[in-house]
């Protein structure tokens, strides 16, 4: 009923290839964007910004980056956390070496460094495949985190070994550091996330995206039809690491405020991987759904029992949380291995043909 597609005729290839061939999809996106840009910021509290809205956006962006590599180009990576770290440390160095630099420019530039590192660690993918490659990306994970710890230049020889985000202002408004307001930071994250998502959607729909998908589906066949595998794989590593690096910079500068090397350790990589997989590999929307689930779940577990009057020890909540996330991962994999994105696709399909089942 609400999703009736009858009467929406396509009269050109262009219209058929449009991002939203069905009017209702575009309308739905409009509603979501309206919520994100206007309604949530007007109604959200400081707590909501800090624990839900901003982290969801940052994690979605990181998962989107990983999804380009794993979901679209088929190269499994377990080193996302370390690449986020490269973005964060690059941004920190840029800001402290060139304090006059616009923070947004610095954040967007920091992705370039993680892209470079990503390509470097992507080179083995030309020879190594599947799980071997996944374990190989762990080399990046462990090596980079070790480097963040040992290379004192990266954190300006700070005695604590951690990076601290300074107060940064842009046109007289504080955007990072202790003095920045959560709402400014949220808008900044939202802007960058929207921009990168838009770019990524179009990249995955274009020629580059099609070569990635061909590589993912069968790389030998892709090579036979004339796709340059080296270019395809390395561009996937570069674009993916760029997005992940920007997400890492946002993670530290717009949300955490400070970072130690072990923040980028393997649990972060897995967190992002869960989001990408629960959301659905090879989808863009799925990253957002997955992030909402993974970020939102602990908050729900923390607040709901208290709200209905059950007092649970906070350590127990944390452990229960881990257990439930583990169970949920298995549950979702069993119920819908293609992720939340597939679930939405099925619902949409049902809505379109409703009320007739066929």
């Amino acid at each position, binding site marked *: 009923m609400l999703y009736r597609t009858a009467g929406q005729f396509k009269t050109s290839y262009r219209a058929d290839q449009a991002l939203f061939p069905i009017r209702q999809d575009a309308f739905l996106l409009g509603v979501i964007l309206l919520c994100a840009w206007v309604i949530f910021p007007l109604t959200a509290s400081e707590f909501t910004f800090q624990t839900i809205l901003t982290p969801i956006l940052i994690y979605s962006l990181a998962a989107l980056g990983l999804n380009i590599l*794993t979901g679209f180009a088929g190269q*499994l990576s377990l080193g996302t956390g370390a690449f986020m770290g490269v973005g964060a440390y690059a941004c920190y160095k840029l800001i402290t070496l060139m304090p006059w630099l616009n923070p947004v420019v610095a954040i967007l530039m920091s992705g370039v460094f993680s892209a470079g590192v990503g390509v470097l660690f992507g080179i*083995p993918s030309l*020879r*190594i*495949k*599947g*799980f*071997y490659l*996944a*374990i*190989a990306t*762990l*080399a990046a994970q*462990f*090596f980079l*985190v*070790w480097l963040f*710890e*040992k290379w004192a230049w990266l954190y300006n020889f700070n005695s604590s070994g951690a990076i601290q985000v300074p107060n940064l202002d842009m046109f007289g408004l504080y955007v990072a550091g202790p003095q920045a307001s959560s709402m400014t930071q949220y808008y900044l994250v939202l802007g960058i996330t929207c921009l990168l998502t838009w770019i990524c959607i179009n990249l995955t729909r274009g020629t580059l995206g099609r070569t990635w998908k061909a590589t993912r589906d*069968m790389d*030998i*066949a892709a090579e*036979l039809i004339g796709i340059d595998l080296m270019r395809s794989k390395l561009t996937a590593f570069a674009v993916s690491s760029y997005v992940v690096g920007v997400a890492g910079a946002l993670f530290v500068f717009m949300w955490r405020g400070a970072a130690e090397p072990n923040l980028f350790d*393997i649990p972060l990589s*897995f967190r992002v*991987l*869960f989001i990408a*997989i629960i959301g659905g*590999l090879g989808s863009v929307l799925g990253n957002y759904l997955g992030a909402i689930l993974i970020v939102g779940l602990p908050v729900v577990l923390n607040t709901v029992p208290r709200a209905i009057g059950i007092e649970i020890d906070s*350590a*127990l909540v944390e*452990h*229960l*949380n*881990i*257990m*439930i*996330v*583990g*169970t*949920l*991962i*298995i549950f979702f*994999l*069993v119920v819908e*291995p293609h992720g939340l994105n597939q679930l939405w696709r099925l619902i949409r399909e049902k809505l379109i043909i409703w009320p007739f089942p066929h």
Partner: protein
Amino acid sequence: MELLNEIFVAPFADMVAAPDFLLQVLWEGLVSGVLYALIALGFVLIFRSSRILNFAQGIMVVFAALTMVGLHEKGVPAWIAVALTLVVMFGLAVAIERAVLRPLVGQPDIILFMATIGITLFLIGAGEIIFGGENKVMITEELGIPTGDTVLEPWGGLLILQHGDITVVLVAAALVLALLLFLGKTRMGRAIRALGDDHQAALSVGISLQTIWVLVWFIAGIIALVTGIAWGSRAGVSFALEVIAYKALPVLMLGGLESISGAIIGGLMIGMLEKLFEIYWGGPLLGGNTESWFAYVLALLVLLFRPQGLFGEKIIERV
């Protein structure tokens, strides 16, 4: 020039100057190498029979060790605690097969891999709730593991062999031998290998997938318990033990995911080489703690030349 000297000359000069210290380093490396090999063997068995890279192997080590120590704290005698832990690990294998593997048959590799990460998280949470997160002391004496040491004096130097370490090496070697015999000589063992060679063919001659899966996960559980006891007696039992799984992954890369002998040789190689590198190069030149990544970088370099690992099956691809 100074740097070249530091890299290419000085370490070797040190080795020649103090051969007893070199032997000590190699021995320490051998002991950890044996444990890496054991864990890697658990990975290989599960990978061969079900194409699952079992990420939960590391947490199974922790879980087994915690269960045993926890039972002992409740007053259960040490050896009965071991037996009960084996029962628990068997229960775990059955539960995993029922709840996770069976519904996921035929899914892509990455989905199964993610499922084992799900198992890992579940076991971390469950372990913390049941046993608490604090560091526990492994019950070495109650299990009859000797604690003294033997001091040898080769070339007038000093070489200290902990009796506990010797026991670990012997037990691990015995376990590996027993496993090889089991795989080579028994009906069940042959069934596991058949499943590893060709799933469909094995199924068509009547090998039960479910039974074999429970069996290999149980074997992985036994391996986890032994590794847990061995590693726990050196470093205490805590969730930090989980990192041992990350140590076994480069062993798998080096030795090949399917190769049993590769896991053993790879484990020993990585155990010794990473100690050597840490002591003679990593510590003085790079500020130490290189053990966290050395094995990975080594394995990566080997893979660049042999993409299937040193002993893996040659990858033949058809379109």
